[in-house]
Structures are given as structure tokens and as C-alpha cells.
């Protein structure tokens, strides 16, 4: 197991030399990356670049969870999947791609939907969670589970020409429910499959998610906690705004909350948000 210890092998020194050269990164941050474990929920538009960069930079243990299969209409944005994986599970395709660019890290595949019944067990094995999902109930569920387990959450979203990014539940900062205590009306919850997305927009946000996860895992820089990045790709504008801190009244992370693992397991996120955790794929009428 020496590969994941402080002692970098000559191969590793050569592979990661351009990061080791950085004075504010160096052997110390690289060693932390190699010992860290990160779970990426969703191997789609956001997960594709996030997984590639996390694998490439040397995150020691990388988990991927997704229940879906690769489809041709994913290919315009989900650049981790190649055409020969069409019809096959996204986790298998994504894991193969990660291993092909870095055979020295461990990649674990979870070919199943994330649900309240498996989330605690799976997420407890990782230091950092990356939310790369595409629907509201998953976002509440993942945030609540991170609060219960005390894990930082790197959350990204993209739709149309816009993207959003922040870090939740990090170092006393807010959780998803602190910002959004009440779910939005279902009519406001559009998904890429319904409304479309310019492929490179989740590309940008997914890269930024990898960056934030690397900063947290390597303990360098200032993670985007208490701040939110707003990207408007069409006009070429990016805002980084200050958001509220942890809410004392938050049902999940507030002062007097009783939210527990047991409650998490029994919480009905689909009913809460009035939308399904694993939406059935839209059948296009264009063909």
C-alpha cells in the first residue's frame, strides 16, 4: 500500500512533476490527494470532466455512482464516454476512461441509483462528495446525507447556457437546505434532457467542481464556501457572489435540528420535491 503513503514512488514523481513543482502545492498537497477519496455522483455532463481531472491529478480513491446507460444524445457533452460504450452502463464507461489515463489510482464503480437506502453506506466511505446529478430530489438527498455524515459537498449545475457552482457543508458553511429550505415548484425544475444544454457549459462547471474538490482534498487555497459562482456563457459573464452562512433554523444542519441517519433513511425526497429521483428518459419526438 506504499503507493498511497507519503513516499511518492519515482513513477509518481515523474507523473505529477508539474504539480510537485508548484510551491503552494508540492509533495504535501500531492500526498494528500493520493490519500484522499472522492465520490462523484453522476457520470454525465458534469461528472465527465470532473472525473477525468480528478483521476488525472492523482486522487487515490475515486468512486463513481450512476444507474444510467450511455446514449448517443449524451455524447455532445458527456465527453468521458466513447461511442463504443453506447448502451453500456455509464459507470463502466467512465471508470474505464479514468483507468486509461491513470492506472495507478483506485476507481470504484456503483452501477445503481443513489437512494436513501444506500447513500449513507456508500457516501460514508469517501472524504468529499461531488454532486454531478441532474434533478432536485437528488440534490436535497445528497446535501442532507453530507450533513448527517459531516462531509463537504461540491455542488455544480448547468442548464441551457448557464451554470452554477458552490461548496456546501464545508467548515461551518451553509448546506443546500440553508439556501433552499423549501423546494421550488416542479415547473421550475428543468432538466438538460427536457430543456437542452450547450455541451461545454457542464464542461466548464465540471472542471470547476474538480478544482474545488482538489483544493479541499489537497488543503490548498480558499474553497468556494459561502460564495457561489454564476456563469452566463452566452454573454461571457461570470459572477462570484457572497451567499448566506449556515442557518440556525435549518432543518438539516441548524442549531436545534434532530435530523439523524434514521430520519434521513426514511425521508421521502420524491414526495418532498414532487419529482422523481431517477427520471425516465424523455422520448424525443424529433426523430
Amino acid at each position, binding site marked *: 500500500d506504499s503507493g498511497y503513503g507519503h513516499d511518492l514512488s519515482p513513477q509518481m514523481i515523474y507523473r505529477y512533476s508539474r504539480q510537485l513543482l508548484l510551491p503552494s502545492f508540492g509533495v504535501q498537497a500531492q500526498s494528500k490527494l493520493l490519500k484522499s477519496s472522492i465520490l462523484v455522483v453522476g457520470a454525465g455532463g458534469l461528472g465527465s470532466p470532473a472525473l477525468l481531472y480528478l483521476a488525472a491529478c492523482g486522487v487515490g480513491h475515486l468512486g463513481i455512482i450512476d444507474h444510467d446507460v450511455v446514449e448517443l444524445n449524451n455524447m455532445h457533452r458527456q465527453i468521458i464516454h466513447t461511442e463504443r460504450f453506447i448502451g453500456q452502463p455509464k459507470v463502466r464507461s467512465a471508470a474505464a476512461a479514468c483507468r486509461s489515463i491513470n492506472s495507478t489510482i483506485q476507481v470504484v464503480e456503483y452501477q445503481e441509483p443513489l437512494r436513501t437506502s444506500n447513500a449513507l453506506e456508500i457516501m460514508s466511505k469517501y472524504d468529499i462528495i461531488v454532486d454531478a446529478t441532474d434533478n432536485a430530489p437528488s440534490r436535497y438527498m445528497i446535501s442532507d446525507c453530507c450533513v448527517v455524515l459531516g462531509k463537504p459537498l461540491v455542488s455544480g449545475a448547468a442548464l441551457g447556457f448557464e451554470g452554477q457552482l458552490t461548496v456546501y457543508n464545508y467548515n461551518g458553511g451553509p448546506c443546500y437546505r440553508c439556501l433552499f429550505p*423549501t423546494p421550488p415548484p416542479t415547473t421550475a425544475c428543468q432538466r438538460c434532457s427536457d430543456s437542452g444544454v450547450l455541451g461545454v457549459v*457542464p464542461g466548464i462547471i465540471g472542471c470547476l467542481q474538480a478544482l474545488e474538490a482538489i483544493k479541499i482534498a489537497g488543503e490548498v487555497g480558499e474553497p468556494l464556501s459561502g460564495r457561489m459562482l454564476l456563469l452566463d456563457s452566452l454573454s461571457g459573464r461570470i459572477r462570484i457572489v457572497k451567499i*448566506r452562512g449556515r442557518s440556525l433554523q435549518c432543518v438539516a444542519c441548524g442549531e436545534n435540528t434532530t435530523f439523524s441517519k434514521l430520519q434521513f433513511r426514511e425521508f421521502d425526497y420524491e414526495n418532498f420535491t414532487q419529482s422523481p429521483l431517477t427520471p425516465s428518459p424523455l422520448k424525443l419526438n424529433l426523430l
Partner: protein
Amino acid sequence: MQLTVEFGGGLELLCNSVKIHNVNVELQKAAEKLTMKDLLAWIRTNLIKERPEMFMKGDSVRPGVLALVNDCDWELTGQLDTTLEEKDVVVFISTLHGG
């Protein structure tokens, strides 16, 4: 009062797909200051062209909408009671779930 009001995350669809609005909001007579509560009422009357329930709920914004005054969450500036000043930039953005 000259303000910039911006919509994002899909809310611009309620305003003929225009994202940035440079507006002049007249102060109510007798009132000495313009608050976010006043601005929301003004926006509902003057900018929102359709489905106002997708923007507001009661006299505040609907769940899932972040309001920002000069790049700062309005929860930190006083929410509905936030006092606006000349040339302030107010952004309303709907949270995205896609990926």
C-alpha cells in the same frame, strides 16, 4: 432611482427573455427610501410579462430563487427590508438542477 435589475437561471423567460434591465424606479411620495419589498412589487407590475407565480410567492420571491443586492445574498442585507441606493445592481436567479 436608477437601478440595474438582472434575471437569470430561466427567470428571464418571464420578461421576454431580456436578462438585464436598466430601470428608473420612482420613489413613493412620503416614503424616504426604496426597499426590496417595494422593488419586488414594482418588478411584478412593470417587468414580469407572464406567469408571475414563477417569480413571486406572497410578497417575496418564490422558493428556489436567490436575490442578490450588489453581488450579495439578500439574506445578509435584510431581505425584504434591504434599502436600495442609487445605481445598485439587483440580481434574481433561479437555482439550476441540470447536469
